[in-house]
């Protein structure tokens, strides 16, 4: 991949967002993590609406880390929307949720999630999760061409 990969984090809880950012800074050197705080904003970001048209500042993501419990539009709705868009249907979406409920895992996979991660509660757990996630998805995996 010629350009630096980028991650979009959709997370409304500022503490969790900070934890993910810190973990990414520590373990995924130089990979930018953009953050939006609700589902509707995630869609604007992906569509390149308004300020998000500036892709140098708001890079189109290679993977999305998606919380489920979000204001305006929840994670399931965002997933359904992504999978219904011709240019986004293959974009890897990794759910990062506080929920251990089997029905949430099931709904997420049904809606087209590539993977489901349970949010670690502390920084050391988050460091491991984000590192393993980055090693696999950004160093090991052939990502789809989302644009055709």
């Amino acid at each position, binding site marked *: 991949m010629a350009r630096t990969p980028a991650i979009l984090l959709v997370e409304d809880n500022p503490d969790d967002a900070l934890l993910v950012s810190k973990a990414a800074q520590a373990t995924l050197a130089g990979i930018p993590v953009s953050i939006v705080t609700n589902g509707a904003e995630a869609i604007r970001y992906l569509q390149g609406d308004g300020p998000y048209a500036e892709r140098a500042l708001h890079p189109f993501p290679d993977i999305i880390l998606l919380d489920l419990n979000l204001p305006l539009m929840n994670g399931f709705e965002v997933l359904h929307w992504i999978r219904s868009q011709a240019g986004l249907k293959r974009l890897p979406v990794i759910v990062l949720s506080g929920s251990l409920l089997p029905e949430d895992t*099931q709904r997420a*996979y049904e809606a087209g999630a590539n993977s489901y991660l349970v949010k670690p509660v502390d920084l050391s757990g988050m460091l491991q999760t984000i590192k393993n996630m980055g*090693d696999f998805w950004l160093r090991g995996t052939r990502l789809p061409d989302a644009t055709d």
Partner: protein
Amino acid sequence: MMEQSTVLLAEDDPDDVLLTRLAFEKARLANPLQVVRDGVELVAYLQGDGRFSDRNKYPLPILLLLDLKMPRMTGFQVLEWLRNHPEHQGLSVAIMTSSDQDPDISRAYDLGADSYLIKPPDAEALLALVQRLHAYWVIVDHPLETCPA
């Protein structure tokens, strides 16, 4: 947690099977690696047909490493079969193939593959890949609970 989670490899090339087994051993993974040699045998395994009905010996896997070019039933056909069998929705599927052709990559994701890996060129790279696979799919990914068949 999930220390004994089974990984199932569907691969017809005996050399690749051997290399993958060695990589799992060398990585000192507790995960039992099960192997099927084509798509038909894979379906039998998942359905618990014949000898595969012994779930102590052949547990349902949490991760499937799926080759694309296999006799009798290809990896693409397996993906289609899985799509029609939602009881296996919790199975994470990583394609592991030598094809880096964009149409194959797109088709695999369209058919529901969770990720797509190119077979590494040597044993050292394969070991590194197996370690990343384990670190992600077994340690941090949260699998959907599968009902015992």
